[in-house]
């Protein structure tokens, strides 16, 4: 243990954390003013010369006809940028003869696409799961009832044979359903336990 290490340790205790709190607060990130972020056209300046659309390396700029009648743009063609194709090289900003582009340092362009597809997958899988859950609950109910009945019969003493039989059948069926459900929803342990229970009941009988 050297003394220099102690110094390092002490400074680290009082130093503020390296980690930026970014997605929660925006306080401690420094984005340079001229960071190449979201950029768009000032429609009142654009002359519709299409130079940016010709030079765009990823063909992200489409000249679109918008009837604005601002006077500066005789053909009413305005560049619309597809930010999913844009590579933010800012060649359009540099090349524009009338400096019509407005630049920002906004980088928060995250977009949730096809949220319904992921949700759809969930819906599908959870529907299947829900059906299985209903089956599970029903078979558990039958199981409990038949176990109670059986216990009652055993405690009372084996006198009436037909009721024992029906309770036994109910127990077996519900156990089998439970086992199959267990296999389907992926809980092997439950399935195995139930199968052992069935076997045990069978041997006893």
């Amino acid at each position, binding site marked *: 243990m050297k003394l220099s290490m102690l110094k390092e340790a002490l400074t680290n205790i009082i130093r*503020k*954390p*390296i*980690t*930026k*709190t*970014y*997605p*929660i607060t925006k306080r401690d*990130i420094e*984005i340079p003013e001229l960071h190449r972020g979201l950029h768009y056209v000032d429609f009142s300046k654009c002359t519709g010369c299409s130079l940016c659309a010709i030079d765009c*390396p*990823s*063909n992200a700029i489409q000249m679109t006809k918008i009837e604005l009648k601002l006077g500066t743009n005789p053909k009413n063609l305005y560049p619309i940028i*597809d*930010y*999913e*194709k*844009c*590579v*933010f*090289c800012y060649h359009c900003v540099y090349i524009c003869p009338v400096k019509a582009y407005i630049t920002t340092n906004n*980088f*928060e*362009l*995250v*977009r*949730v*696409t*096809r*949220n319904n*597809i*992921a949700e759809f*997958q*969930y819906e599908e*899988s*959870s529907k299947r*799961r829900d059906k299985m859950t209903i089956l599970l609950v029903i078979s558990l109910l039958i199981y409990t009832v038949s176990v109670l009945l059986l216990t009652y019969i055993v405690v009372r003493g084996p006198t009436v044979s037909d009721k024992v039989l029906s309770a036994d059948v109910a127990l077996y069926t519900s156990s089998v359903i439970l086992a199959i459900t267990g296999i389907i929803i992926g809980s092997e342990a439950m399935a195995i336990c139930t199968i052992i229970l069935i076997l045990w009941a069978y041997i006893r009988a």
Partner: protein
Amino acid sequence: MISKNIIKYSPWILHFNTGACNGCDIEFLAAITPAYDPERFGVRLAPNPRHADILVVTGALNKKSSERLKRLYELIPSPKYVIACGACAISGGVFAGSYSLRLKASDIVPVDLTIPGCPPRPEAILLGIKTLLERIGGGNGRTRK
């Protein structure tokens, strides 16, 4: 609904480079270092596809690695999410039209979230991860301070 609740507090990320220029990859690498630290949201790199919940695709999809991507996607247990990171993965970027590319990641796998940029900043990647987490109900990470 069960498994959605399970992964929402700690989804693990698998990163696959399908033919990127390394720009997105080094920014992704920077995004998992202490300065950005996604582990406060429970997110960390998965060592293999079987452990992963979120697949991050970077780079233009070339024909050979698109088959790998499909295989990786099938290996990840459901529920799974795909993030397309960078212009190339989303739409082909400057490489659109090349003879050895498939155009975009969403042709091969369903993409849940796109992070535009060339390359996106680590902050943008973090924001993307957090947005995805919020969609599945997690992402209430707190940091010190």
